[in-house]
């Protein structure tokens, strides 16, 4: 039994080793299978940009906010993918009670350290709207400038309709047969087609304005109802402008307008040094703990160190397989969970010692130690798991990373302490109680 565990554990460790390019000089020459599982590093370690946008959903009905936020995410994702960013993460953060009511979009762009470039690639997406003429009795705002020219504020002339870029299926570039001018032809999806038919039907003889990013680009007059969901924008485009517009429209017009709230960029070198520092701290911490355990708890301590190595290997493998995105705070959580993993072992060993001191032989002492310590191991770890679940649920990305590694760590450590340590201790098959075995199982630096 102990042998099987030993082999399994080494297997897991081997997997972690094989899939880590920095540890393995032959990494490039290996089978593809091993290359599939690198550690996934968070932005603060790999370098990149983290952007938070606020989505203005004031114009969307509350029952549809969810779906338009999802649509917004899809569009931004497509845009970001167009620029070939590897593994971008685009998340919607719903404005609920906890986050204070704002609908937000969080965009993580690993490797993009130029914020300006990042903002451009996301923000320059056109917001397409169709507006109809306002009823005649709505007063129009007009201003007379100093040259005596009358300016009609075109914005107040038109009122918004439900038809926006959300309902666009496809945009294509065409050239007018007669004038050779470029124009952009739009095809709506089913809902959009119905809306457009409705709008054209009720507005025959009137103007329909096509707005792009809040400015009118074209104000054609409707001649008849258009039931097939096709519209044409023929502004005064240059061919290049028209082509660019088509590309942007196809990658998706934004269903709701967004504004940038926060940006964060981390240079690649900064991230790299943070990784090195984190790894160094983890190794040193592990060594210190191992030395302490062996000096203080002797034989059981040695086994605890073995269990701890198992624990580390299993946890790292989980990080790779899930995968868990590692951040500086996440590594912190992992390092602390190393300390916690020892806790269960310490509890059990202290209990064992006590039982042996009370006069049971070593075999019974080990048994009683595990049995009696179990309730406190269970209860104390449960409280840690509860804490990490709450943190994961409520937390900002940074806290989430910590909570995830910490919570996973506690779970795995419980497993490794009560199974691995136990199996090894029994596998040693120490039944005799004599001076030597007593020495092995007692504790302290001094000989007792």
């Amino acid at each position, binding site marked *: 039994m102990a042998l099987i565990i030993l082999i399994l554990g080494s297997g897991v460790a081997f997997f972690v080793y094989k899939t880590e390019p920095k540890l393995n000089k032959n990494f490039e020459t290996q089978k593809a299978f091993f290359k599939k599982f690198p550690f996934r590093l968070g932005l603060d370690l790999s370098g990149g940009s983290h952007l*938070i946008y606020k989505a203005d959903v004031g114009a969307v009905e509350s029952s549809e906010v969810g779906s338009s936020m999802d649509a917004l995410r899809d569009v931004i994702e497509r845009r970001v993918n167009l620029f070939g960013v590897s593994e971008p993460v685009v998340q919607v953060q719903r404005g609920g009670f*906890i*986050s*204070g009511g704002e609908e937000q979009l969080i965009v993580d762009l690993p490797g993009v*350290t130029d*914020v*300006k470039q990042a903002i451009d690639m996301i923000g320059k997406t056109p917001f397409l709207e169709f507006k109809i003429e306002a009823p005649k009795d709505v007063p129009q705002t007009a201003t007379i400038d100093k040259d005596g020219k009358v300016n009609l504020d075109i914005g107040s002339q038109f009122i918004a309709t439900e038809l926006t870029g959300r309902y666009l299926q496809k945009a294509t570039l065409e050239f007018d047969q007669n004038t050779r001018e470029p124009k952009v032809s739009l095809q709506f999806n089913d809902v959009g087609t119905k809306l457009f038919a409705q709008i054209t039907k009720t507005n025959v003889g009137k103007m329909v304005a096509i707005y792009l990013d809040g400015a009118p680009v074209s104000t054609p007059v409707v001649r008849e109802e258009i039931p097939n969901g096709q519209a044409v924008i023929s502004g005064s485009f240059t061919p290049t402008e028209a082509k660019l517009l088509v590309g942007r429209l196809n990658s998706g017009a934004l269903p709701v307008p967004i504004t*940038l*709230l*926060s*940006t*964060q*960029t*981390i*240079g690649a*070198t*900064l991230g790299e040094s*943070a990784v090195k*520092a*984190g790894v*160094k*701290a983890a190794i*040193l*911490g*592990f060594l*210190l*703990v191992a030395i*302490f*355990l062996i000096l203080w708890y002797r034989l059981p301590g040695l086994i605890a160190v073995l269990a701890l190595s198992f624990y580390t290997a299993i946890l790292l493998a989980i990080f790779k397989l899930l995968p868990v995105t590692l951040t*500086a*705070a996440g*590594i*912190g959580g992992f*390092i*602390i969970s*190393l*300390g*916690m993993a*020892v*806790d269960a072992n*310490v*509890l059990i060993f*202290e209990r064992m010692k*006590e039982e042996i001191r009370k006069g049971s032989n070593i075999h019974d002492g080990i048994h009683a130690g595990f049995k009696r310590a179990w309730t*406190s191991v269970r*209860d*104390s*770890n*449960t*409280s840690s798991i*509860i*804490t*990490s679940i*709450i*943190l994961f649920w*409520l*937390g*900002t990305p*940074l*806290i989430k990373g910590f909570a995830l590694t910490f919570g996973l760590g506690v779970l795995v450590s419980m497993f490794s302490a009560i199974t691995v340590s136990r199996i090894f201790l029994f596998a040693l098959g120490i039944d005799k109680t004599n001076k030597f075995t007593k020495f092995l199982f007692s504790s302290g630096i001094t000989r007792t």
Partner: protein
Amino acid sequence: MLMVVAVIFTFTFGLKLGIDFKGGALLELDFSRGRPEADSIQNNLRSLGVTQALVQPTGETGYLIKTRDLTEEEHQKILSLWSSGSSPSGDGKYEAVEKSFTSIGPSVGSELARKAILSIVFVIVAIILFITFAFRKVSKPVASWKYGIITIITLLHDIVIPTGIFALLSHYTGAEVDTLFVLALLTILGLSVHDKIVVFDRIRENLKAGEKENFMDTIGRSTSQTIVRSINITLTIIFVLVPLYLFGPETTKNFSLILTIGLFFGVYSSLFFASPLLVWIEEWQNRG
């Protein structure tokens, strides 16, 4: 006593909120070929309309610049001050590479603050509920929810003291309360509860065993039975935290420091605080 001192520290020195919570911008620049004076950086920023910038040297060649939250345009203008072939208004002599930039709008900041407070409240409530549940069978002589309340009182102690020390620290080093600080407090909460549960578990076991002794003796015995474990486990966690502080990433330095302080007082409070409180509650009950 210590708590009073800590509270006084917290209020006299005050806690500086980091840009996480109040909004603002943090820019780290690296001048690999010699850096300008901090004053000249401040003057340059002022010429762009960015007043009240805090400029701190970092490392051998870098500067950390803290300002109000910046728009992307302002950010680019600042960068162009020290880019190669920079504008005449800038310092043509110096060249900077941007290492990191963070700008957090005030609304995001208040959202983060809100979340931080909420998560502390939720964790505390969940802990009371869990302890009440876990110790439901030991309602005599002290009701199980009282164990929960005692835990929370001692937790308050465990949190207030590191906060006080942090306030003192931040007075001299300019450290700010950020998400990681809140995270450290939450972790202290978790670990300290861990500790208290182990002691209470022993009390539970000894009470169940039903030996004829008074409550106070049971508690005294349980505490001394778990003392070695409590100290050892705190030691091991401190063993991993010290390297994290000394060699770990810059971002988690304050985190590990606060955590170490909190752990120390956590053990102290489970041994010398939680148990006497239990006895005190029991005596008080008998009297009433």
